[in-house]
């Protein structure tokens, strides 16, 4: 039995995302969809294996908008459903979401957004709480693991109560942290799907699911939000801990509650500071806030990333000013807390200390001096492509083709592990100077390619991963063809959504629920669009370089190169070396070679290191994945690869 289906009352260590999944199961969810993205992926990943046992339909959708649409269909047919995504996924889904909040829903529908303050595994720290306000949607934020489960379960009930979608927001430190959760009961599901659509237009429980008549439905939607606010006033997910009359009131939500609690304890301020933890952050419960704002004059708002809570509390406090008096607010507006990045207990303790003039007990001065000395010894550890990563070989090929071409060509980047080529330029051999959202590389390339009439002469390349291709690239690719954009578009096809843990995508013949499905062929799509299409193995440097060089010289058309090689960490490859790779010390000339340490200084594979004593390259057998690419780059042929026989 999987941990996710533990019996009621068992106390289990759950990842925050598993707690969310368990909460959905306890609510009797029937349909769960999502698009992989850190830190959200484990919600769908943990539901997929129990799909059969719990009679669920679980899918990895092509993108977040479609994920929400698929989940909404289930809701319209009366079932409970959820769509799960990372913060920027909500942007992708937002067009449908705007119309969904206007049409309303039927079966409980929960949108789970797992966000990444500090961009620990993102190229943005955008947050979606503002969508809750903008689209007038209830917002729930769990502050620990038990709440992640309990709030998720309640979110479905709330959604059904008001007939509209509810957003649950988690953050990396909740989704990817683990803690104890006491399980509740898993229900027996009895609902049958049926879509009724012939009722009155204003009755979203029986009529057509549309957003018109817009103004009348908008008013109805806003009335629902008033019901939500009344429920939030009494919610057990909002609670106060601290003295009756604190000197300072902290208002907080999400993982920030745990930071605030810890900071208060670190400074020994339990008798001076109170914490109002809000699990329901939009719409804010006004009466509850009034009751707590009366307690003191000084308020500190602790939240990530933007000042969403701070702004909304201030608006309400200004309306109550005649009753509660004037307050002094501390938070992001007055720079008590940093305006960007994630928080932690230290940052909150520092803020508390500065407001209440309390100092944290410091470590001994001698210890701090020793820390300083030791810190000076520590070299940074830059992220890089793994040993055996096909992207290293792909960018090596791209770099060499661009250099050979000589017209200062460049690559428009996209989202995936290959983003590292932009984040750490030397990793991508300084070829990829742009990086935005999924699919944007191809859109930007399409635009750059049309600048020839204004004098731009550089060849334009772009890359995307296989999963990204389906997610958002296809429209941009069609745009490029339709507008005759001369671009070389390279698909870095590593056979799965590798960065987030090898979730299947439409190019594979297997679904999230491990069922056989038709694979949608990237090459066939590109051919149908009208592009010239070639396929190569990036580990074959000679063949790949030839194609790329020809493509760059072939002016005036859309060219697609699909570079196929599975990720080194993929389940079928991990731990299995294709080649036994060694440096022949007799052949390696070291510093005297004249290659200027091409293998270690430029190629940058973590497994190909430099022996400082011998002054020669050496392969670290523990790290080497056995791809054998380095054997092709050594001008001395000093690196040998021997096929591993199994």
């Amino acid at each position: 039995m999987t941990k996710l289906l533990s019996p009621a009352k068992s106390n289990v260590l759950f990842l925050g995302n598993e707690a969310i999944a368990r909460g959905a199961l306890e609510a009797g969810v029937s349909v769960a969809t999502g698009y992989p993205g850190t830190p959200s992926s484990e919600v769908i990943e943990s539901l997929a294996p129990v799909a059969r046992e719990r009679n669920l339909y679980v899918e990895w959708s092509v993108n977040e908008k479609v994920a929400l649409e698929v989940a909404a269909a289930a809701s319209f047919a009366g079932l409970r459903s959820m769509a799960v995504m990372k913060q920027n996924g909500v942007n992708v889904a937002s067009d449908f979401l705007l119309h969904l909040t206007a049409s309303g829903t039927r079966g409980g529908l929960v949108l789970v957004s797992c966000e990444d303050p500090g961009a620990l595994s993102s190229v943005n720290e955008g947050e979606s709480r503002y969508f809750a306000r903008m689209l007038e949607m209830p917002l729930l934020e769990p502050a620990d693991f038990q709440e992640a489960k309990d709030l998720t379960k309640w979110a479905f009930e709330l959604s059904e109560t008001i007939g509209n979608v509810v957003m649950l927001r988690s953050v990396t430190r909740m989704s990817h942290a683990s803690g104890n959760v006491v399980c509740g009961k898993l229900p027996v599901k009895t609902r049958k799907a049926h879509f009724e659509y012939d009722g009155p237009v204003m009755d979203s429980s029986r009529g057509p699911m549309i957003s018109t008549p817009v103004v009348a439905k908008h008013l109805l939607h806003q009335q629902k939000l008033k019901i939500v606010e009344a429920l939030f006033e009494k919610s057990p997910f909002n609670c106060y801990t601290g003295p009756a009359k604190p000197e300072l009131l902290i208002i907080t939500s999400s993982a920030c509650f745990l930071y605030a609690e810890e900071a208060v304890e670190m400074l020994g301020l339990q008798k001076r500071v109170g914490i109002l933890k809000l699990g329901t952050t939009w719409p804010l419960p006004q009466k509850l806030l009034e009751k707590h704002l009366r307690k003191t004059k000084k308020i500190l708002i602790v939240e990530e990333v933007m000042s969403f809570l701070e702004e909304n509390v201030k608006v309400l406090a200004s309306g109550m000013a005649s009753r509660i008096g004037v307050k002094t607010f501390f938070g992001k507006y007055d720079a008590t807390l940093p305006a960007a990045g994630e928080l932690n207990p230290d940052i909150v303790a520092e803020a508390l200390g500065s407001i209440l003039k309390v100092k944290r007990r410091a470590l001994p001065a001698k210890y701090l001096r020793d820390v300083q000395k030791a810190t000076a010894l520590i070299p940074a550890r830059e992220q890089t492509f793994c040993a055996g990563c096909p992207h290293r070989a792909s960018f090596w090929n791209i770099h060499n083709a661009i250099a050979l071409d000589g017209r200062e060509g460049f690559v428009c980047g996209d989202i995936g592990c290959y983003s590292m080529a932009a984040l750490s330029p030397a990793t991508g051999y300084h070829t990829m100077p742009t990086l935005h959202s999924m699919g944007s590389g191809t859109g930007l390339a399409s635009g750059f390619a049309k600048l020839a009439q204004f004098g731009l002469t550089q060849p334009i390349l772009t890359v995307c991963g296989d999963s990204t291709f389906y997610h958002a690239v296809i429209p941009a690719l069609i745009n490029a063809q339709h507008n005759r954009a001369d671009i070389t578009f390279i698909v870095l096809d590593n056979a799965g959504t590798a960065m987030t843990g090898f979730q299947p995508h439409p190019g594979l013949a297997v679904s999230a629920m491990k069922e056989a499905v038709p694979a949608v062929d990237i090459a066939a799509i590109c051919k149908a669009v009208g592009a010239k299409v070639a396929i190569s193995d990036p580990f074959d440097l000679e063949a790949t370089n030839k194609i790329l060089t020809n493509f760059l010289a072939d002016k005036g058309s859309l060219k697609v190169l699909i570079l196929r090689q599975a990720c080194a960490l993929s389940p079928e490859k991990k731990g299995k070396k294709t080649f036994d790779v060694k440096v022949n010390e007799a052949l390696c000339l070291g510093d005297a070679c004249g290659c200027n340490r091409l293998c270690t200084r430029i190629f940058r594979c973590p497994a190909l290191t430099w022996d400082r004593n011998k002054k020669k390259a050496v392969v670290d057998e523990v790290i080497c994945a056995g791809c054998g690419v380095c054997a092709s780059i050594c001008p001395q042929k000093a690196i040998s690869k021997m096929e591993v026989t199994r």
Partner: protein
Amino acid sequence: MKKRIPSETKNVILTGVGGQGNVMASRVLAGMLVDAGYIVTIGETFGMSQRGGSVMSHLRISPEWVRSPQIPRGGADVIIALEPLEALRVLTVYGNPRIHVLANSRPVYPIGVITGELSYPSNEAITEAFDRLSAAFWMIDATSVGLQLGNPVLSNIVMIGALAKTGLLPFDRRMFEKEIKKTLRADKCAINLKAFDEGADLIK
């Protein structure tokens, strides 16, 4: 076994380089302690952050309550490091005079060191820093044990075995065996138990 429930939260940091089995080790450790009745909070990040980069799991082991998934600076009690430089990196941020450090001695060189732009501290410099910055430390060659057992990634279990022997955390071999049996096949269990035992033997 007599339960040694500490009255205060124990703060443990497991660190290493992406791919060394850090997350698995933290899960195994946490699983044992949850079974022993503790409230355990693990804070970690995974995803792109682990591609060749430093990784860290924060384990908070409390007899009564959920803690922040991030340990405050200077607030760790134990560091378990699968890579010596990462032990030092964590020690300089989360260390204090009472901390204990258990580190694998095998370096994984950062790219900047491989390219020659940065230098990796000598073994002597690292042990000297451990000596100054901790109450006690152990440096063991867990990777070599893993290699002898047929897979270097077993070094994470070697470290867990060594940790058991130090007595810093309330778990033993019996609890470890029970924990891995939940998820691993019998043959995998055997090799993991062997790694655990060899790790314990490295602590004198």
